[in-house]
């Protein structure tokens, strides 16, 4: 193992500890939910791995939302997640996710959490609020830049959201044109996704064409995805069925619907939740270009 990777595993442990301290100090309860479940939230572009009669979870979100339905107000979890066929410079099919959920909150509360969490983690493990990542300097002590998806497409994508959706190039423009052009001096919040790109998010009051969803970026790395949670079971079922219809068009098998989750969802209070990739956070703090440099074993080493 290279000395870079060895040092990064130590850094990783310190980051995990800093994350736990952050949430515990704010009154969040650390929870653990099953990793092997009968059904995930069906997604057009996420392939769950099979495990016995069910699946490995692709995110702990469904069980965590069911805990909200049972009266838990602020919870967090750090756990392994699995997504088949995802392997690249920034992807491993098994990775570590941090998720947190808070009742009586919306996505703007999560953005505030993100800013405070990043600032505290960077301060704890790097001893200051400036971080150098892949040649750029990022400041974590001076807020974040907020850009709407609409503005990002017009400024950096050279097109409109509507045109990109019509041509099926939304994700391609996002990855090839927008992400590399995002400001690098501070973390960036890319917010208000088109409604069809926010399957589990509440629609924005006053503008039903967008969902209250945002992505957090730092140094060009996609770190987290959060939203004001949809808590209408009928609307949620419709969106799951649309995801399966999209899978059918792409020649992919339909996925089972998480019925107990849909049954509980009607009891969920207004809430917001977010998933943050711990491996990406470690990459950022370690100035690592590849996920392979921050994990103990790559899939190829097993």
């Amino acid at each position: 193992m290279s000395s870079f990777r060895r040092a990064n595993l130590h850094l990783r442990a310190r980051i995990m500890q800093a994350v736990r301290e952050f949430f515990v100090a704010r009154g969040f309860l650390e929870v653990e939910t099953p990793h092997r479940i009968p059904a995930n939230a069906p997604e057009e572009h996420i392939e769950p791995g099979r495990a016995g009669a069910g699946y490995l979870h692709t995110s702990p979100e469904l069980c965590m939302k069911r805990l909200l339905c049972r009266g838990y107000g602020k919870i967090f979890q750090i756990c392994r997640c699995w997504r088949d066929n995802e392997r690249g410079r920034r992807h491993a099919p098994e990775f570590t996710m941090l998720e947190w959920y808070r009742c009586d909150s919306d996505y703007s509360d999560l953005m505030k959490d993100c800013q405070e969490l990043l600032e505290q983690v960077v301060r704890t493990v790097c001893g200051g609020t400036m971080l150098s990542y892949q040649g750029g300097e990022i400041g974590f002590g001076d807020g974040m830049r907020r850009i709407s998806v609409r503005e990002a497409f017009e400024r950096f994508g050279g097109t409109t959201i509507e045109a990109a959706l019509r041509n099926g190039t939304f994700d391609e423009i996002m990855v090839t044109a927008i992400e590399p052009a995002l400001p690098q001096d501070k973390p960036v919040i890319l917010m208000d996704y088109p409604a069809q790109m926010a399957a589990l998010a509440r629609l924005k009051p006053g503008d039903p064409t967008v969902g209250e969803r945002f992505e957090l970026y730092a140094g060009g790395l996609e770190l987290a995805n959060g939203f004001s949670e949809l808590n209408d079971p009928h609307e949620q079922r419709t969106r799951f069925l649309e995801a399966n219809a999209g899978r059918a068009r792409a020649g992919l098998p339909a996925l089972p619907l998480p019925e107990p989750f849909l049954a509980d969802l009607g009891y969920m209070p207004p809430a917001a939740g977010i998933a943050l990739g711990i491996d990406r956070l470690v990459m950022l703090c370690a100035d690592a270009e590849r996920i392979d440099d921050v994990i103990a074993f790559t899939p190829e080493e097993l």
Partner: protein
Amino acid sequence: MYTVADLKKGLKLTLDGDPYLVIAFDFTKPGKGQALYRTKMRNMINGTILDRTYRSGETFEPASLEERQMEYLYKEGTHYTFMDQQTYEQVVMEEAAMGDAKNFLLENLKVDVLLFGEKAIGVTLPNFVNLRVIQTEPWAKGDTSGNDSKPATVETGYVLRVPPFIEEGELITIDTRNGEYYTRVKG
């Protein structure tokens, strides 16, 4: 048939009828979005570099490449002819596809010819070949200039640096991988 999941550096595939070698590959995917497979490929016939992005579900034809040992027969204009000694089948290769190999080819040399279908697109030489020096300056005894090499031309027309003691008419061994002088053949 390959799928996007097979894409990686070093994969050889057929595109628009030509064989391509994947020389760079990156998987990207927005968390909730579509996976993109970004590749850089080199055309194995003309060397053109191509950037292509693929999505889940796309498929490719493998490049049907075969390497066969053949004997170099002769050159005519810019065409080099090789023969399979088992089947007596002959193939012709364009000089452009030969690369540096043409510097080391002598008649009857046994080489590995890379075939794409019927077409010869590359040649792999033995690591070492012996070639005769046809022109080089004599070693000036007492030369104290400190030069430890001098230019020499071998029978294929190739020019390389050799130690000062090599004389015209001598046989030398050349490393074909870097084109450099390796040793003098005694006798």
